[in-house]
């Protein structure tokens, strides 16, 4: 909710520095593509309203024009990156597992490429001043399913291998991570959060976590790799341990 600008809840898409410059062209391509619809809209707006009769209307609905342009840029960025992502996924499909964190490992390289493609739309989504069409809307295009009536806008949610049920509360400043790095290994494992779960503020879910229906995770705790939190129970601690079962 009332977060500072530095903690806006951008979905984490880290990129390996060794191959960052190599695929820069993809990133710039998506940025350029995302500005085309909004500039076409601006052209239409100016030519249509800049006349003797509509000039007052031109200035009157200029604030709403800003709102439309912000969302046009965001939506077209999402669409552009999803199209490129589909092509990349055809070349190499994403899969879970433990990989090597070296440039010879094909899975690791393609994970980085996917992150480069997703970075711009997710950055735009997080920097948007308006609270609509945020995580729940945007992440759906990248394969993350988030149910209805879920609060998840102030948390860092990974953009793949995550599924979140409906009526879930994910607290401010929490992170849901489906990837992890351990020394030379790179881990990709699905995080599953079922319906009616409550996750407090500043929690961290590590890859492989399964939270079953109606479980509660208290604030300021984290779950272990491959942890399973049972139904109707309360967990807390570092790492999360069972506190009470109903």
């Amino acid at each position, binding site marked *: 909710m009332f977060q*500072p600008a*530095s903690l806006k809840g951008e979905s984490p898409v880290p990129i390996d520095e060794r191959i960052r410059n190599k695929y820069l062209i993809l990133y710039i391509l998506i940025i350029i593509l995302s500005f085309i619809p909004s500039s076409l809209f601006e052209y239409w707006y100016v030519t249509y309203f800049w006349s003797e009769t509509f000039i007052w209307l031109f200035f009157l609905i200029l604030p709403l024009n800003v709102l439309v342009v912000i969302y046009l840029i965001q939506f077209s960025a999402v669409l552009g990156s999803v199209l490129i992502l589909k092509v990349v996924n055809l070349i190499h499909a994403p899969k879970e597992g433990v990989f090597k964190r070296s440039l010879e490992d094909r899975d690791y390289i393609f994970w980085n490429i996917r992150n480069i493609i997703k970075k711009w739309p997710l950055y735009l989504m997080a920097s948007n001043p308006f609270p609509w069409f945020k995580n729940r809307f945007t992440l759906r295009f990248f394969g993350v399913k988030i149910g209805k009536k879920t609060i998840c806008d102030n948390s860092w949610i990974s953009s793949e291998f995550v599924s979140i049920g409906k009526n879930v*509360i*994910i607290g401010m400043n929490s992170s849901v991570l489906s990837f992890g790095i351990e020394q030379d290994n790179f881990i990709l494992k699905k995080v599953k959060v079922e319906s009616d779960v409550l996750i407090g*503020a500043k929690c961290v879910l590590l890859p492989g976590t399964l939270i079953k229906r109606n479980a509660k995770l208290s604030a300021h705790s984290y779950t272990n790799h491959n942890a399973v939190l049972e139904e109707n129970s309360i967990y807390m601690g570092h790492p999360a341990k069972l506190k009470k079962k109903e």
Partner: protein
Amino acid sequence: MEREDDSKYEMEFISTSGVYKTPFSLIIIIQLFVGGVVLFFVNLWFINSLYYLLTGSQFYSFGIKAEWYYWLLLPLNIYGNIFLFVFTILIFSAGIFRFLNKLSHPREGVFERGSKDWKYMHRRFWTAFFPIWLARALPLPWLDIIAFRFFGTRVGRSVVLYEGYIDPEFVEIGDFTMTSLNICIFSHLIYQDKVIIKKVKVGKACVVGPHTIISPGTVMEDFAVLGVNSYTDINQNLEGNLIHVGTPVSITLPIQSIEESQKKAVKVKDEAKISKEKQNGSNLNLKEG
């Protein structure tokens, strides 16, 4: 401190502050519209005046009064626009906020989902959302403190309050308090079917360490310090002049003066030297000093 009926606030775990998206969140469009219209029309008048001074004809025909010194104001235009935009939105939404408070007086307690207080809490939060976002996104560091004051958070003088999640009501922060990075000050906690609202009070010259959570009902007395990575339970009282650490806060430590801690450091160093001279084993145990 006397408190009535603490038992209804007792929860087994701490959740988070936050709101659901209700249709009332569309008020952000109205706020944007009001701020934008004022901004654009003032600028239109300004540009029109400059255009008149330059060419003798009007940029767009409506009444102007051009003065030569308008040219001097041109560099200030951008800075002035920031002020104009933010403060029209701040004053407008603070007005709505006061109006909502009159409709339903905000009060502490535990409220069911869908009740009147629950609805008005959401309305107040959505009213305060955009102005505070704006104040924090703009490059003026004192602007967000002013924005919080507009929405009923009592913030004292010389307060550091930049990098944290802070609820806009039922929070009171004293003079010279310093809050660190990535903190949460919650006066609301939502559980699936209810919300807990309780006032948070942070005293004078307190220090709130990084990565901490302050839950509703916490009272930090003057000169108290909340240590790194700890959180407080609901209705916890942190005594003044002490350091409080723990998840939830359970350990208290004395605040040492610089001289005292320096003396201790010298003592530890000396003992380390002596033990080195003695050559009794290779591992130094600094903790025992």
